[in-house]
């Protein structure tokens, strides 16, 4: 090597060195790639500008301030058809966030349970979970959304069937009604004194965290581990229940009741929301189940054997030895499943759920003709949302990541 370097420096720089000299080669390739990329992007932009001007359109976000003029069937914030397109977009965005949030939680619960149970020694349980996983992940999500929506709307009774002498009845002591117009659940009514109740509840959560810390510190000092789970459960329920009665029942439930042709009162969960939520959760849950199963299997069998040989019980072995090692394998693919679920929620169009794509990326675009601006904003929303989710999960991953050296 030394002799070649000497030779080239003696002879001065030759142009062919840009390609054949290892010192310059990657720089040359990067410069060429960069130039091509810039060319491509400038062509894209100039093409778009050209086409827009040919159509007589400009690039303008002013439409966001205009009157939307359409109704949205599920609004988490006040909205009327007289509100602006920007507000319609926010309503849609909140609906997307709602279904994505609910979906991620349910998918994780379903996935972890199914993944662990698929490893069960119980033949029937393991096979049932295999059928669930293979059934849900091998059929397109869109079909599951439509299938569940069809079940919710076609196979459930009409509100009038709930009348006296009708064929249907409400569940859970007449508090939940599952009908073809949606699911009606009791809604909390916050009376005077409910703030105090909430404060008591928050304090009891803090007490649980404090108790866990104390219990572990006591274990370090004396070796005796206090019963964390029973005490935590007691702390969770007892103070709040006590406060509820002391304060004279500040929170009451408004039950849905049949009035006229439909249910009145209570919380109305639309079939579109439920179908989308369940389908997204069950579909993504099947993938998460496989991730969890793979994570647990990735920990060598010798680890649990060593723990057993030391006298650790299977549940402690799981918590202290297997899961800490499995988590580092589970979390990264779990992040992409959350991102998948969030973006797949745009399939809401199939069941008429008014998410961001249906408002901002649907009706607003149709009415204003601002497809480029609308789609850019929609893309930007999903991009930012995904980056936030993966950023948060990466922080979590970094905290869970094992130090092994």
């Amino acid at each position, binding site marked *: 090597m030394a002799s070649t370097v000497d030779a080239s420096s003696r002879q001065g720089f030759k142009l062919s060195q840009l390609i054949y000299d290892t010192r310059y080669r990657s720089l040359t390739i990067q410069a060429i790639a960069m130039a091509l990329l810039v060319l491509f992007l400038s062509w894209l932009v100039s093409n778009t500008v050209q086409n827009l001007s040919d159509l007589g359109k400009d690039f303008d976000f002013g439409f966001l301030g205009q009157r939307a003029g359409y109704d949205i069937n599920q609004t988490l914030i006040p909205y009327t058809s007289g509100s602006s397109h920007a507000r319609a977009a926010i309503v849609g965005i909140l609906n997307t966030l709602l279904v994505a949030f609910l979906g991620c939680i349910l998918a994780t619960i379903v996935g972890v349970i199914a993944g662990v149970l698929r490893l069960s020694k119980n033949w029937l349980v393991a096979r049932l979970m295999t059928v669930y996983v293979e059934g849900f992940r091998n059929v397109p999500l869109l079909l599951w959304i439509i299938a569940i929506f069809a079940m919710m709307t076609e196979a459930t009774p009409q509100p009038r069937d709930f009348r006296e002498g009708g064929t249907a009845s409400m569940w859970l002591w007449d508090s939940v009604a599952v009908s073809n117009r949606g699911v009606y659940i009791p809604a909390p009514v916050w009376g005077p004194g409910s703030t105090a109740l909430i404060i008591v509840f928050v304090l009891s959560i803090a007490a649980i965290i404090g108790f866990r810390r104390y219990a572990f510190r006591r*274990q*370090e*000092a*004396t*070796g*005796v*581990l206090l019963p964390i789970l029973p005490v935590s459960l007691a702390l969770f329920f007892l103070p709040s229940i006590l406060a509820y009665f002391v304060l004279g029942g500040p929170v009451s439930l408004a039950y849905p009741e049949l009035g006229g042709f439909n249910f009145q009162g209570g919380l109305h969960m639309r079939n579109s929301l439920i179908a989308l939520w369940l389908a997204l959760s069950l579909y993504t849950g099947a993938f998460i189940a496989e991730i969890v199963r793979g994570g647990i299997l990735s920990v*060598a069998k*010798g*680890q649990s*054997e*060593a*723990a*057993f*040989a*030391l*006298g*650790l*019980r299977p549940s*402690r072995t799981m918590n*202290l*030895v297997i899961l*800490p*090692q499995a988590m580092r394998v589970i979390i990264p693919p779990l992040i992409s499943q959350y991102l998948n679920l969030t973006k797949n929620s745009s399939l809401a169009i199939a069941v008429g759920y008014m998410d961001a794509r249906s408002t901002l990326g649907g009706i607003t675009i149709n009415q204003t003709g601002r497809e480029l601006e609308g789609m850019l904003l929609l893309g930007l929303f999903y991009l930012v949302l995904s980056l936030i989710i993966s950023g948060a999960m990466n922080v979590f991953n970094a905290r869970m990541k*094992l*130090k*092994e*050296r």
Partner: protein
Amino acid sequence: MSDVAHEMQTSRAIDRSQMQVSDEVAIQITDMNKWFGQFHVLRDIDLTVYRGERIVICGPSGSGKSTLIRCINHLEEHQAGRIVVDGIELSNDLKNIDKIRSEVGMCFQHFNLFPHLTILENCTLAPIWVRKVPKREAEETAMHYLTKVKIPDQANKYPGQLSGGQQQRVAIARSLCMRPRIMLFDEPTSALDPEMIKEVLDTMIELAEEGMTMLCVTHEMGFARQVANRVIFMDQGQIVEQNEPEEFFGNPQSERTKLFLSQILGH
């Protein structure tokens, strides 16, 4: 002659003063049978281990020697016969299994240290969660045994940072922290580089000198000759021959044993 080489490795004078066998029974195995599916791994095993005995189990691979010692702490389940450890019958009763496992320590061929815990945490995990020992005390015990296996200065490192021999010595210390009355060794030196075998064997010899009851599956015939008071030869799931090391190596009885010994000693 690999045998001579190993002879050299354990050549220091062995203090036999504590190495006395009492007539108290530590492990009693009667008529034990085990199958893996259709495959009959262990046939009619009868074995009595007295307290303070150092038993080396050898035999060709697949002869069931690992399975035998794994049955003793119920890492494998036996299907017929009885195993009584320290007066506790090994049944499907979880409480008995727990009791036996906290009395019996085990070292594995691949060490099986917990990679996400430091050396010290590896050693304190079981005492804290099984024996309910305060953390401070568990750490003192751990440091005591880590000093004994001559790696106290590695206590805050992770297993991945240690050599194979060091890892196996940590594994021995980790078992000792539970203060077991019986130690099982499942080919503890088979995954080690030759120069690391010595340090692990030295640790095991020290244990033997303190009177620990030991069952050791190993191919280290030098160790067997010097430390064991009984050598057991297994083939096809049966105990073919057992004898004192002098007799076993000098005057093997069965043809199968002679063949095995000629193969492992004769090159």
